[in-house]
């Protein structure tokens, strides 16, 4: 079966000379719920930006369901929905405009777009806020809007860059349930998070990135089954201080 994401020898060097991603190779199978872990500045967001087209890879190859993400970028992008870590939204636009415009960029016709926008606004409990400007919303509501926006074109691959950062417990639980539903329906999900319990709860496969490279990859069972569990494995893979590792294993 063609993998959902296949990255080989990806390298991204910014104009400043910073090498954010260094010879990264990664495969995510279709239908997987993949946890992408790593400390701040490890290269998670840059890798996601290269997959989605926000950043241009310096070298290497990225395929989305077998489609080259650079050469056939338009075809590849149709397959991906992105909920970014930072809000990249016209803050003066209303909730329904933001979701509707995204559907438009993806070529959805007006009737289909309306149906999808209405469904997502309801699904994410945004009905009372649909006509409000994005800047008027609380942090949790903003997060729901960008998630709804990511789903408007019903992508096969959903990329969530820290989707629960700054979100209250109730919404986080709702979101987890919803993501599991989507995954059960066949969507492949790539999730980055700093909450290890979130990754443990949701993901089937986990990859850890450090210094722009994948330092450890395996199934959740392998990580949890190792001495000290996921936290210990994470600290080891990211080259954390020995006392931190000892504390985690204790």
């Amino acid at each position: 079966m063609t993998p959902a994401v296949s990255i080989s020898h990806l390298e991204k060097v910014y104009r400043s000379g910073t090498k954010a991603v260094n010879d990264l190779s990664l495969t995510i199978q279709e239908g997987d719920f993949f946890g992408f872990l790593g400390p701040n500045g490890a290269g998670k967001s840059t890798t996601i930006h290269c997959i989605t087209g926000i950043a241009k890879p310096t070298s290497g190859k990225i395929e989305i369901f077998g489609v080259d993400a650079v050469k056939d970028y338009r075809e590849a992008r149709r397959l991906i929905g992105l909920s970014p870590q930072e809000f990249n939204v016209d803050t003066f636009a209303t909730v329904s405009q933001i979701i509707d415009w995204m559907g438009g960029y993806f070529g959805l016709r007006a009737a289909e777009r309306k149906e999808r926008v209405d469904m997502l606004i309801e699904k994410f409990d945004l009905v009372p806020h649909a006509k409000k400007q994005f800047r008027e919303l609380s942090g949790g509501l903003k997060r729901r809007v960008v998630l709804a926006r990511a789903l408007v074109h019903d992508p096969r691959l959903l990329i969530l860059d820290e989707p629960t950062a700054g979100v209250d417990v109730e919404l986080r639980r709702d979101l987890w349930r919803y993501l599991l539903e989507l995954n059960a329906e066949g969507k492949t999900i790539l999730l980055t998070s700093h909450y290890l319990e979130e990754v443990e709860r949701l993901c089937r496969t986990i990859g850890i990135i450090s210094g722009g490279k994948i330092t450890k990859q395996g199934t959740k069972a392998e990580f949890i089954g190792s001495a000290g569990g996921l936290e210990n494995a994470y600290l080891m893979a990211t080259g954390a201080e020995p006392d931190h590792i000892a504390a985690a294993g204790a």
Partner: protein
Amino acid sequence: MTNDNSAPLPRLGINWIGLYTIIRREYSRVMRVPIQAFLAPWISALLFIFVFGYVVGGRISTIGGHRYIEFVLPGILMMSVVNAAFLQSTSQIYFQRFLRYIEETLVAPLSYVEMIIGSLAMTVFRSIVTAVGILAIGAAFGATSMSGILEFLFWVTSVSIIFGLLGIIVGLWANNFEQLTMLNVFFIAPLTFVGGVFNTVQMLPEWLRWIAWGNPFFYFINGLRHSMIGFNEAPEPLGALLTLAMVAILGVVVWRLFERGYGLRE
């Protein structure tokens, strides 16, 4: 709620809906600031027409058989079109970068050409609305005439595309609001004023006439003036060719910048 995930997507041709969505979004953004976008240039043009055309122009003899107010109106109109196009284009691209919602289009299945055309479409629309308003103001002073509507549309459209493209370049390059206004302050405004808005080339001292002949704004204003009152100071095909060449060259430059990701994917 999901579609059949394994079904292959139909091959994407021109993303007309995506293109139209860029225009819809920009229309919505512009209509949030109608005073700034439309009323301000109309009031500014009204003052220019009143002071220079009506008050001062009343004491100036005719130029080429035309009243001075009729002579300056095309220049004022072109100045407003240039400003409208440049401001629309720079603010559009800069705010997309500043608030990062440019990423919405970068992750979407839109080609660079679709992104550029979408951006220019709104620029041309805003310029035409500005121009129509100024024609109406001119008509109130009895100064509006039209000798060639297609020629008029050619000049308004092509010049707004040129300044729309220049605005995209500046919007991609600028890293702050001050840089955003630099081209306007040091290049566009001075060249417009010496490009024949208020005077003919013959009125300039002989040693200064080269400024007019070497100034693209002179050809833009001259072309528009010809389309409105039939007054012409330069071989018209030269101005039209120069304008089309600028559209082509700037179009290629902007497309290359998008392709390289300059200011977009960094």
